[in-house]
């Protein structure tokens, strides 16, 4: 994790988080229902990092997303994934933050009808270190 200038956003320096993750998920069967029923066109899956900082009581950052169409393999075995989107905090709240919770959620897009947002039952807590990383070449 580093402290970098976010050129795309506010002018001050903000904390930049770097996470590598694995996802193992079975989206096919919910607790009492079949997720991909006749009226489901696709699922929009996304990985959210949720945490609290001194600056903000609640922060949510979408790190990665994927579209799963009806007919795609509903089982995910993703390893060593890099985040798709930059994980910038609004301020310096990542340094020493022990509790970043990663959850997988999805937006059900029907052929017609209601658009529910569902959060998966698993979640992971990720602690960030107390010190910034010295510049590395990626």
């Amino acid at each position, binding site marked *: 994790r580093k402290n970098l200038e976010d050129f795309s956003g506010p002018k001050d320096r903000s904390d930049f988080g770097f996470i590598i993750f694995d996802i193992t998920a079975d989206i096919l069967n919910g607790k009492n229902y079949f997720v991909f029923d006749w009226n489901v066109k696709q699922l929009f899956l996304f990985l959210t990092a949720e945490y609290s900082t001194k600056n903000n009581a609640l922060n949510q*950052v979408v790190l990665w997303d994927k*579209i799963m169409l009806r007919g795609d393999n509903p089982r995910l075995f993703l390893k060593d994934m890099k985040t798709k989107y930059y994980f910038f905090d*609004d301020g310096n709240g990542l340094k020493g933050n022990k509790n970043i919770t990663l959850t997988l959620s999805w937006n059900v897009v029907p052929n017609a009808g209601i658009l529910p947002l569902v959060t998966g039952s698993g979640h992971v807590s990720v602690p960030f270190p107390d010190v910034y990383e010295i510049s590395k070449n990626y």
Partner: protein
Amino acid sequence: GPAMDLFGDLRRMNKRQLYYQVLNFAMIVSSALMIWKGLIVITGSESPIVVVLSGSMEPAFHRGDLLFLTNFHDDPIRAGEIVVFKLEGRDIPIVHRVIKIHEKENGNIKFLTKGDNNEVDDRGLYKEGQNWLEKKDVVGRARGFLPYVGMVTIIMNDYPKFKYALLAVMGAYVLLKRES
């Protein structure tokens, strides 16, 4: 034939019948407006039904799809939600997904949006110097959707002749139809 019958009908209609038909028409228009206003009150959104205008949310939504919105004040804005927002000074509503939120203890929230089908987030769309959206920019949250139905509005916009023809046909029907 039928054309001569129609012309005969028009001549036979006296003033009283014409006024009656006009009032009928006005009543239909008023009822439609009342239903629309009622929807605005129930959903809390100034624009409870919107038509998707661009392909930035494909493959979920396509141009011409219809979205049903709610905008309840106590509904928190959370990452992953599909919001419809208006940028200051612009009339066109934009339908994109919330990808980042930072909420203070007192409920003050600032958030960032991005179209599913776009490579980059919406910062390029926001006003000069604006980095975040706020609750006041939100027209509503997308709760339901119907495909294709909104195409009629888009066609009427792109082909005004079609719109006038449609209105003329509707007007003629309502004014001329007989109540038995």
